[in-house]
């Protein structure tokens, strides 16, 4: 069986990154925006693993970094959900367009 070339994996991760960026800019629902951010972080994870396996297989640096990212993404998601719940209590909505207390 032939191995999947590195380029294919990089295409996948870059596509995921831009799907995340696109979702972040177009969606107004906070949960969906949070999901978009997670997509961006996971595309980075894929990149790290791919680079580590294909280019620098003698050390595990990239894989360790991925573990850091997963832990921090979990912490970030916990805080994000807390913020969103708190906002839902006051606004009765999780649409970002409704949060417009402050204007220029």
């Amino acid at each position, binding site marked *: 069986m032939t191995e999947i070339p590195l380029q294919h994996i990089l295409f996948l991760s870059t596509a995921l990154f831009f799907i995340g960026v696109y979702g972040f800019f177009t969606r107004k629902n906070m949960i969906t925006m949070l999901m978009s951010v997670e997509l961006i972080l996971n595309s980075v994870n894929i990149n790290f693993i791919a680079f580590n396996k294909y280019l620098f297989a003698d050390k595990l640096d990239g894989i360790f970094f991925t573990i850091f990212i997963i832990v*921090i993404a979990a912490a970030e998601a916990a805080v994000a959900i807390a913020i969103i719940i708190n906002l839902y209590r006051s606004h009765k909505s999780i649409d970002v367009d409704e949060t417009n207390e402050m204007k220029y």
Partner: protein
Amino acid sequence: MKAIIILSALGLATMFVGVYNFKKALLPMILLGLLAVIGINTMEWNTNIHYYNDMLYFDNWAVSFTNLILAVSILVFLLSGQYFKKNTDHLEDNYSIIIFTIIGAILMVSYSNLAMLFIGIETLSISLYILAGSKKTSLASNEASLKYFLMGSFATGFLLFGIVLLYGASGTFHLHGIKDYVIENHASLPTIFYVGILLMMVGLAFKISIVPFHFWTADVYEGSPTLITAFMATVVKIAGFAAFLRLFFTCFSSITEHFVPILCILAVLTMFLGNITAVYQNNFKRMLAFSSISHAGYMLLAIIALKESSFIAILLYTAAYSVATITAFAVLLMIKAAHQENDSIDTFNGLAKRSPFMAFTLTIAMLSLAGIPITGGFFAKYYLFANTISAGYTWLVVLAVFNSAIGVYYYFKVIIAAYFKEGSEEKLSIFPAYQLVLIITAIATLLLGILPGLITEMM
């Protein structure tokens, strides 16, 4: 390094002291702890130790930036006693999260591995998302927290993508490893390396609010609780610029021609947009937010110059800027404590009659921010601009000086409100802790202006 361990223990201890209901002992304990940490940290001066397999590197720059962060945090904690007096429900949580934020900031000024940079930035940011929303019943605070979170996590994504591309090209996270890689492959760096630099620049620019990544700043500064805004405006700027400079000076100083033009454009945009928008603000917190953006523009000049002396320039500038900003927020907090729930510049009307002392310290702070001689702000600007001219960017300095002139307009608006406008006649009494903070900051501002050699010759 010891600073980080002791602060972590202090943060945990703070939580437990809260659980066992010794709330009176909290603040003295934290202040003593921070003072002790400054002492212990200073003992690492000139030791240049690499910690944890070269993850952290405490050189003299790291030690001095750490001390600056700790000193500013002590001032914020001094203000906090009175600020949280009405609402002591989650006092220990607030305090311990502020301490964890400081740990993140210290990691950001002492990292020598990109993993530590990432962890430092996230420790700082995640704590700040919580702190920005810590006034749970206030709509504005919730909204500030949400906006900060969305923008911050988005920026983190860019930063990480930058790191992964640098890793893909060089195979290492160590700053010195990347530096060696750049020097070895000077002529034939792959494209992903440049894209990586660019993306990391975007990620860091978000954190220090460089135009065009600044749009969250005004809303977050306005909506967050005022004390947290003071903390955010000072500590995050210090840590962010130190991290930015450390990365670019160590790794990329031999390939400046590829990113300095971009930084020049960003600096010019940041200075003009920050200053011009600040002129039109009526809300004091928003005005300080835009003024912080314009100061970020000036400080970017030090990164453009990218020399060893840029560190001194950033250290002096952030010190002068932080001290003056803390004064401004302390005066605002004091006025607001006298039952005026309003952040508009009009709240300063007639301040000179209500409390001459506060009007005087506010004036010193504003003069320092505007860069008028004998204050710290003047010397810091002078040093920064001289540093930039010696690196050959005279045109940038000309624009920066022009911008400082615009800045004088809106800083003087506050002084004029305090001295020449009619306002409430009621006398303002001042809390002892606030008086202490104002005296310390006023003396520090003047000292930085009159005897700047204290810092520049030490280095």
